[in-house]
């Protein structure tokens, strides 16, 4: 029988965003996105859960040391926390910052930075926009 060990770290950040498709009329944007098209943006307290898989190091008993993980998460979130995503984060220049797209961008960023930590891979991330709305995102191996 084989087993898998997962580790999840939860972090939060606050950000604002606006849903707007520049290829559409104002009317169409409003009918699809509703209040989320409000011109100056609106904000949320996001919670990100990062779940990692990997080998448990026999010396430390850990998949990854939280001391190593925390700076990676801070680095990934520096373009998210207290930012207006549409304008302050380059990833959303041509991408609507929906929860789904934010999860995809966060995955890419986390995966890139975790390459430096061998034996430890992203398993799944969960991004809460509000306690009532969240997205789980992962990629097949």
């Amino acid at each position, binding site marked *: 029988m084989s087993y898998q060990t997962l580790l999840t770290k939860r972090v939060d950040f606050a950000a604002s965003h606006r849903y707007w498709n520049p290829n559409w009329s104002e009317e169409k944007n409003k009918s699809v996105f509703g209040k989320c098209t409000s011109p100056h943006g609106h904000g949320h307290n996001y919670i990100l859960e990062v779940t990692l898989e990997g080998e448990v190091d026999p010396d430390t008993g850990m998949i990854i040391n939280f001391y190593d993980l925390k700076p990676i998460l801070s680095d990934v979130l520096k373009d998210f926390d207290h930012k207006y995503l549409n304008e302050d984060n380059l990833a959303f220049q041509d991408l609507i*910052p*929906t929860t789904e797209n934010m999860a995809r961008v966060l995955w890419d960023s986390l995966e890139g930075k975790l390459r430096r930590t061998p034996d430890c891979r992203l398993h799944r991330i969960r991004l809460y926009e509000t306690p*009532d*709305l969240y*997205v789980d*995102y*992962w990629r097949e191996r």
Partner: protein
Amino acid sequence: MRKEMCVLTRVYHFSAAHRLHSEKYSDDENYRVFGKCNNPRGHGHDYYIEVKVTGDINPETGMVVNLSEMDEMMRDIVEELDHTRLDVEIPFFREFQPSGENIVKYIWLRLEPKMRTARLYCLKLWETPDNYFEYFEEEEQAT
């Protein structure tokens, strides 16, 4: 890019009463099997239903599903169940026990045929902060 999976979850709430009781059992058996849940006058819970849907992220909207469409699909389901005594007022639960297992299945049977662009991935029904029930197709992994 490796194949991605994006599962969006939206939480809805309803408050309902129920009584667990079987006509096939004697009063003693009912009490032995269902305990406090057999109170003839019923009791109630604040139910929270997590609706999990998946599909491609639409490049034009950035969404797996439009939330206002999802709210619309759930509206009459929540309205039907909210502030009712399930085993008295809802025909399905006159036939089937209004247990968490059957409530979550009932919501699946009502919601799944309405899905258009996205696919229903899993339902998770919280009966209390300590009990929840999940319903999904067997090949999926629970989240």
